[in-house]
């Protein structure tokens, strides 16, 4: 895998205490309305039989994929990916088609369902706090996390850190770093003590979901030109054949008429 040289998050589910301070910090930093959020903590509750109880929660926000599917899907190019990681949504271009929501395998982009035409209904999602990154700060959710369940840094370093934790405590974790290769690699690496599916993470494979779609799109222009040329050729050929047929028919008709004239 080519090394992705940008910032990333590392989330460790064993450290998360479900305090939801990250949700508050995010909403304060990004001035999100009370009934909306860009980040949410999903708890799976208690599992198992006493005394062997397992509890897990997952902090969920944009994965900032190395090859974002939302960016590929957006018809008007409202998404951009900064070289240092953040996938940014630009509301001034958005037409509100919500194809990005269909494209994202993680279900991240959200829409303003309660906004009319005048207020303007837009997509919203995590931005990785580029305004803070540019000042050398961590994103708000990471800065506020009391247990370091969320940490932030260079993706390469965090990958090493994640594998180091797996090696140091082999019994504690599921032996996998989710996001390292998933969907072409994401900027959100996840360690967990319960199966990732239980945290609500989809099984997406290592190829970005946009790949097949983009390959097929690549055929569009050549196909259109070829098909257009073929149709034009067919139209001309059919026309010529029909003309020829008509000429032959006219000739025959003439031949039939000529003897009559000779008799006259």
């Amino acid at each position: 895998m080519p090394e992705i040289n940008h910032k990333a998050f590392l989330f460790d589910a064993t450290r998360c205490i479900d305090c939801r301070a990250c949700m508050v910090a995010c909403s304060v930093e990004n001035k999100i309305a009370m009934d909306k959020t860009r980040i949410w903590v999903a708890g799976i509750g208690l599992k198992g039989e006493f005394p062997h109880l397992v509890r897990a929660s997952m902090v969920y926000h944009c994965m900032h994929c190395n090859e974002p599917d939302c960016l590929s899907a957006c018809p008007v190019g409202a998404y951009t990916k900064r070289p240092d990681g953040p996938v940014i949504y630009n509301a001034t271009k958005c037409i509100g088609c919500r194809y990005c929501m269909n494209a994202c395998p993680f279900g991240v982009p959200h829409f303003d369902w309660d906004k009319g035409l005048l207020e303007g209904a837009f997509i919203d999602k995590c931005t990785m706090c580029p305004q803070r990154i540019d000042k050398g700060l961590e994103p708000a959710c990471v800065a506020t996390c009391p247990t370091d369940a969320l940490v932030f840094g260079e993706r390469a370093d965090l990958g090493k850190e994640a594998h180091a934790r797996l090696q140091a405590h082999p019994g504690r974790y599921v032996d996998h770093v989710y996001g390292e290769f998933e969907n072409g690699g994401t900027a959100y690496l996840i360690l967990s003590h319960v199966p990732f599916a239980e945290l609500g993470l989809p099984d997406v494979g290592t190829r970005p979901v946009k790949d097949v779609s983009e390959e097929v799109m690549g055929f569009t222009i050549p196909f259109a030109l070829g098909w257009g040329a073929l149709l034009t050729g067919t139209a001309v050929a059919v026309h010529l054949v029909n003309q020829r047929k008509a000429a032959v028919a006219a000739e025959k008709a003439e031949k039939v008429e000529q003897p009559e004239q000779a008799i006259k």
Partner: protein
Amino acid sequence: MKMHIALNKRLRISPLPLVLLALMAIAFIVAMLRYALGIGAISNLSNAYPWGFWISFDLFTGVAISSGGFLMAGAVYIFELKQFKPLLRPSILTAFLGYIMVVVALLVDLGHPERIWYMMIHMNGTSVLLEIGICVMTYLAVLAIEFAPVVFEGLKWQKFAHFIHRFIMPFVILGVVLSTLHQSSLGSLLLIQPAKLYPLWWTPILPILFFTSALTIGLSMIILESSLSSRYFKRGLEVHLLEKLAGVIPIVLGIYLIIKFGQLAFAGDLKYLFTSGLMSVMFWAEILVGAVLPLLLFSFKKVRQSPRGLFYGALVVLLGMILNRFNVSWFAVKHPDPLSYLPTFMGNVHYIPSLPEVLLSVGIFSFGILAFGLVAKYLPVFEPEENQKE
């Protein structure tokens, strides 16, 4: 339908147009509410289900049932099959109105309908939706040109009609190319959801399947629309032409079935055929009703030659293939389980379209039917009966 409401002796209005107008008025109110209060206020769409009934019915079905227009234009102009000329204008009108309905529905469904033209200035070449948007917009213009001679003839502006007629070929070819592209790429629209669309439907050759099935939908739509308008306008039915179209349908359906099952076998997905519960039921409903049954029906000459056989044959194709569009774009799409990660206030966990949602689509469809009736009544859409052979 025999009942007439006599406003005065000259003006007689049958109840059907009034019902259609009422449905349109309801849809208009729904649309205004949506513009004022937001999509969530009138629909059950949510972050877990960003696309729903509108996309499946208005976009996927609306585009598919409009495919008769390019089929007839191609047959008459490119292949010079002049005998199909009586079907040309009604098909182009159906397509024209069909696409207008698609665009009207999208203007309600889009979050920012006033920005729909952004597709022409901010183009993202990797987006399938962009291709569809551009194709639909351009094809709508092509259809306007293809239909313009009818309007000019109605206005007795024969010169304009002849002028357009002389330069129609490039537009016909462009129309066929655009139609091929966006009929197939409606299928490509789902390619980006390999993890969400059930494997019985997701395949890289979705565009090919979509195009093939669109051919059968277009042919069936021509048959159905001819049957209905012959009944409503009390005209003769061009059975000798429709019979030929109906003869093509089993061939295309056969090809469709071979591709469909060939693909499933090739991908190793045959195991899902009977073991996927509701998904298997939906799959077989679509295949049996939309493909197998009409393939058998239209293989009989008797069916192809009887007006009733034609009507019901075309109807089952449409029902089955429209179910296919609903399956691919809605029923078989599983978004990440919202229960496990979405905060409940962010979205409905289950999606069933709301009544206003359905009423909006019904209203737009009513507009299409009413417009077809009015245009067919006042413009030379149908050939005068005495000109027809037989």
